[in-house]
């Protein structure tokens, strides 16, 4: 089955490189171990994990944005990494506090410069969940039309009654 690298070793490596702040928390209980990392250190952390010979996470499998619900006041962005030479996997999570106003989008630094595949995944997260990725080369909507209003995967999303004057309800 899936081989997960010793998560304690990854924490050790990250803390040596970035200090005590590098890992906010670690989840061991679930089926897949996950690391919570701070948003401001995200690109450096990713680059480190990609290039270090022990981790070598060269493949970003998936990037998902999760709405924690209107009560929680947070959004989570989850990165699933895999290493092709080592065959192990890692889950990174970043929690962003946000008040859900549309003029104050939750913001994260982009990792498109680390893995190019993050480019489209981040555009999708922006399009459907309204996560703003700072430093992204071309942050546009990807699946929905350019003039769409709101972010449909949010739990409090209200569908518009009309689109371009056409009733859609």
């Amino acid at each position, binding site marked *: *089955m*899936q081989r997960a690298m010793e998560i304690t070793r990854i924490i050790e490596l990250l803390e040596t490189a970035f200090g005590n702040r590098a890992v906010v928390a670690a989840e061991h209980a*679930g*089926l*897949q171990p*996950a690391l919570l990392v701070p948003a401001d250190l995200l690109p450096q952390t990713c680059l480190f994990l990609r290039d270090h010979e022990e981790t070598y996470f*060269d*493949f*970003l*499998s*998936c990037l*998902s*944005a*999760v*709405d924690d*619900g209107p009560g929680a006041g947070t959004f989570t962005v*989850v990165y*699933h990494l895999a290493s*092709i030479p080592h*065959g192990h*996997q890692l*889950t990174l999570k970043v929690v962003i506090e946000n008040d859900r106003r*549309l*003029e104050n*989008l939750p913001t994260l630094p982009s990792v498109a410069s680390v*893995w*190019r*595949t993050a*480019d*489209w*995944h981040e555009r999708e997260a*922006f399009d*459907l969940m*309204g996560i*703003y990725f700072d*430093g*992204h*080369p*071309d*942050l*546009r*909507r*990807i*699946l*929905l*039309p350019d*003039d*769409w*209003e*709101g972010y*449909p*995967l949010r739990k409090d999303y209200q569908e518009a009654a009309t689109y371009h004057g056409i009733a859609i309800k």
Partner: protein
Amino acid sequence: MTAAAQVSVDKPYQGAQRALEARLAAIGAEEMVINMGPQHPSTHGVLRLQLVTDGELVKEVIPHLGYLHRCFEKHAESMNYGKTIPFTDRMDYLASMNNSHAFVMGVERMLGIDQRIPKRVEYIRVLVCELNRIASHLIAIGTYGIDIGAFTPFMWCFRDREHIMNMLEWASGSRMLYNYIWVGGLFYDLPVGFEDRCLEFVRYFGPKIDELDELLTQNRIFISRTANIGVLPADVAINYGCSGPMLRASGIKWDLRRIDGYSVYPEIEFDIPVGKGEMGKVGDCWDRFKVRVDEIRESVRIVEQSLQRLRHDLKRTADFDPRALVPKKVNLKAQDYYVRAENPKGELGFYFVTQEKSDIPKRVKARGPSFSNLSVLPALSRGVLIADLIAILGSIDIVLGEVDR
């Protein structure tokens, strides 16, 4: 206009760095913007490509997606896990079995019943998935021929695919969108006589692959249209998240059936074909095509071995119930899990975030292989001829149902 609308149209967050518009504004005197699609047959569905061309040269490709967006992820948040399976069928609609297999595996793993699934069920799953993989690759090869200008392979591929479609229809009751693999089991056992007819098909199909191989793989015109075109180096492929035949054609032996060893694949013998650059460079269009042809042969081997087991030691018995483990209600604790599986097009992943004591997920994210594979297109087709762009796009083998979800 509401306040929210003003914000989204006005800026700050509608995208501050917009490379596309900058590029189109800076268009040169010799350049021309051409629209390809969304209704062009060579885009394999409703994909729109905006090309910045200089004569016959393509300087820039800007893909526009979303014409087939059906809100899969939003739908999945509003119904229970079993009801979502038909929606997964509609993602990569050429390989519906594989989609539902991946989804079901994830739910079973979270329920903790993945080790208790009967062997016969697992072998049937592998059997139908591999049949579906053959069907999907046949379409990839056939339509690729037509992109390049060869009509016959298309007819031959569809003729053989039809046999598979008929068999899967016999098993599931529907021709393309099966809803056959369920959480904890199967919709029904295989119909009586299925194994024999499948064996008959395998015997018929073996020589047909060789015929197809002769017709296209060694064809001089085909080689000159595909060899050394659209060369994708391994590091670029990995960086862009390419998987499946795309990645393997670039020389990386990466097949999740082996890496993760899910279902009963560890018990089955098969090879993983990789691109060797026989006709040109490693990772060119010809390699991608060849990897698919070779994978069909490997899938036939897997089908043969599954049939062997299903006809002998895992024979159907009167009391065998493929729904014995199907839960009445999928009761999960709050957790999250990312499941990945090898689809015909590459790594299909589902990321589940579940809710405590509820059979409705909080979030399901689908990672379609075609989505990531397609994202490499702009990098791959900078400075190529328009005709070669068609060859490159065809060799990626996208299904828009999965790109747009």
